[in-house]
């Protein structure tokens, strides 16, 4: 290969790496959104849950040294990760209980959790760290990256798989992309995944088949919280190694959009997340070509809207709706007509 083409491909690989890293948190949250949506109880609190996990992960990984002194250094970030996930699960549980037990509207309760997370994280940030902006002073650790050895001779591949600098991709980036396959497998090949889809598509049928519908909904919500939590942990213990107020910057909502843009399928969600991740990367690159970054940022939302319009047109006949939870008084009400 000529030196020029190597250089170009290496550049492309570098861009690709940036896209992967930007897309990973969105992807994780989006997979959470997907699993909750497929079960009929869409989790709109992804944004807040990411914040919660990001915050508690950082705090716990720093304080773990005091709680469990004397352990090997590499364990502490993982303790932080565990605590962050537990915190995200806790808040998801709050959402689940308020919706499934107390009848709170799912969307409104999700929005409330987002507000709760935004407030609580900053509140605790000030109380525990004394700084309103971030935990930069704490020097919190990051989770490890995975380096693939032996690629020194293939610069393009090395850049692609190990990033520039060769440190390797963050473990959670691997987790994110593997989760796509795992989730797809789970949904189509396992019992519980099938039950989950049945509950979302026809809860009456699931009930009649003896499936514990409420329990499935709880599990789906908790799983979505776990995935969103992983996305948040990546942000504060990978992408960056600190917690900043509002560091999710709307990724949780982009994740929701990614679910719909991806036609509510694992592979589609992957594609949509990559698109959203790519946007940020491309915006700065295209800035060099006189294209205002704002226009680039407008593209993914625009594409999402178009997708919803086309999806709506094709689904209108079959009566299936983009998301079962949301009421829709303008839908052709064929199901409720008592016809002969």
């Amino acid at each position, binding site marked *: 290969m000529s030196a020029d083409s190597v250089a170009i491909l290496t550049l492309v690989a570098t861009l690709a790496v940036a896209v992967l890293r930007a897309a990973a948190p969105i992807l994780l949250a989006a997979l959470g959104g997907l699993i909750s949506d497929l079960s009929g109880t869409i989790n*709109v609190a992804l944004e807040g849950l990411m914040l919660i996990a990001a915050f508690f992960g950082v705090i716990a990984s720093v304080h773990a040294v005091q709680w469990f002194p004397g352990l090997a250094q590499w364990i502490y970030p993982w303790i932080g990760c565990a605590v962050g996930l537990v915190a995200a699960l806790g808040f998801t549980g*709050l959402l689940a209980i*308020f919706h499934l*037990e*107390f*009848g*709170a*509207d799912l*969307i*409104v*309760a999700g*929005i*409330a*959790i987002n*507000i*709760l997370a*935004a*407030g*609580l*994280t*900053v*509140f*605790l*940030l*000030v*109380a*525990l760290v004394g700084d*309103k902006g971030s935990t930069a002073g704490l020097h919190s650790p990051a989770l490890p990256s995975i380096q693939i050895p032996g690629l020194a001779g293939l610069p393009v591949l090395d850049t692609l798989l190990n990033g520039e600098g060769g440190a390797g991709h963050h473990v959670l980036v691997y987790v994110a992309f593997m989760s796509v396959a795992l989730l797809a497998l789970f949904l189509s090949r396992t019992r519980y995944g099938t039950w989950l889809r049945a509950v979302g598509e026809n809860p009456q049928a699931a009930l009649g088949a003896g499936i514990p519908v409420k329990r499935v909904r709880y599990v789906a919500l908790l799983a979505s919280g776990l995935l969103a939590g992983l996305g948040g942990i990546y942000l504060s213990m990978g992408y960056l190694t600190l917690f900043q107020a509002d560091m999710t910057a*709307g990724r949780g*909502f982009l994740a*929701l*959009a990614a679910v*719909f843009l991806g036609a509510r399928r694992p592979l589609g969600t992957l594609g949509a997340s990559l698109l959203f991740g790519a946007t940020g990367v491309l915006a700065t690159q295209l800035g060099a070509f006189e294209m*205002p970054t*704002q*226009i680039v*940022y*407008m593209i993914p*939302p*625009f594409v*999402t*809207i178009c997708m*919803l*319009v086309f*999806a*709506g*047109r094709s*689904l*209108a006949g079959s009566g299936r*709706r*983009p*998301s079962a939870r*949301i*009421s*829709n*008084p*303008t*839908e052709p*009400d064929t199901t*409720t007509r008592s016809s002969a």
Partner: protein
Amino acid sequence: MTAIASNDTARLQHQRGIERWQLPLAVVAALVVGFVITAMVSDEPWRAYLALTTGALPDIRWSDAHGWEMRRWVRFGSVIEDAITLTFLGLAVAIPFRARQFSLGADGQMFLSALAAAAVSLYVGGPWFVVLPAAFAAAVLTGFAWGLVPGVLKARFGANEIVTTLMLNLIAVQFYRLVITQVMRDPTAGYLVTPVLPAAALLPGLLPRTNVTAMLFLVPVVVVAAGLLLSRTTIGYEVRTVGVAPAFARQVGMPVGRAVVMSMALGGAFAAFAGLHVSNALLKRLPVDLSPGMGFEGLVVALLARNDPKAVPVAAFLYAYLRTGAQAMERTTDVSREVVLVIQAFIILFIVSERLLPTLVPRKFARWLGRQPKGDA
């Protein structure tokens, strides 16, 4: 079947008995939760809560040297300013909610209307009675149009309005930034911002050293207009009916699709007032980094007001009051102001938990509460 009706009456009574108390109980419970959280991290929770609840008030005191004095009007002024913006944003969310549409687009509508108002203020010359109405018209038309889009997408294509409004928000904010950066930028300023709006376009101030302007007088007008819209116009009637009984609306031939579209478009029109307020009263020039998110606060206000226009300014004031009180609390104690968000979140959760109170409050007690000697059955 008649037996079913009488059971419904019993249930309605049980519900009504509780509904009256739902908002106050929710607020109290949320304050308690907030207090518990505060007490866990603060050494002076009581003082903090005192600051929270009274911090926004102006300071009125007597002193021998100066007689009656009123201090800290500026702080109270910011409460009023916030409350004004939040009232309009609350209406922007509440109206679509009445038709059962979850429109989260108030942010984008506000940004674009602010842009339109600023543009007209900057480029249309003339005295105030030309510029101001023009700015208002531009803002309202923009907000209306931007609210129309998700409405049509929903009515024609069944596109989920939560996602579309969120996406449209993103597009609107980007467009706002684009225009300010490329077109309306003030070259003499040190940062990305529009030029200051001409004096003719600014609303007259009411309180010195604050941004409380004549917009305050517009608030009751707009609120009353919103209330009348819902209760006295055919459009409002359709919106309400479609929101509570869509099958019935269809049976009697109401234009359900049109009602949905109009509810969202009208919501946008109300957001436009917030946009104009921000541009011509509060900031007097538009920065590129105007932070989005006020629309969500409008959502909270609408929820607190249970989507009733009459209650929106009250809820908006409460929200703004607590927020400013939280800022005061932050200045004087070791508790940061975000605890107010925690309180709000719990108020929302408690309010919308339909089954929480009925399970906690025994039936008999609730029926006793429900038997009020008022006109409504």
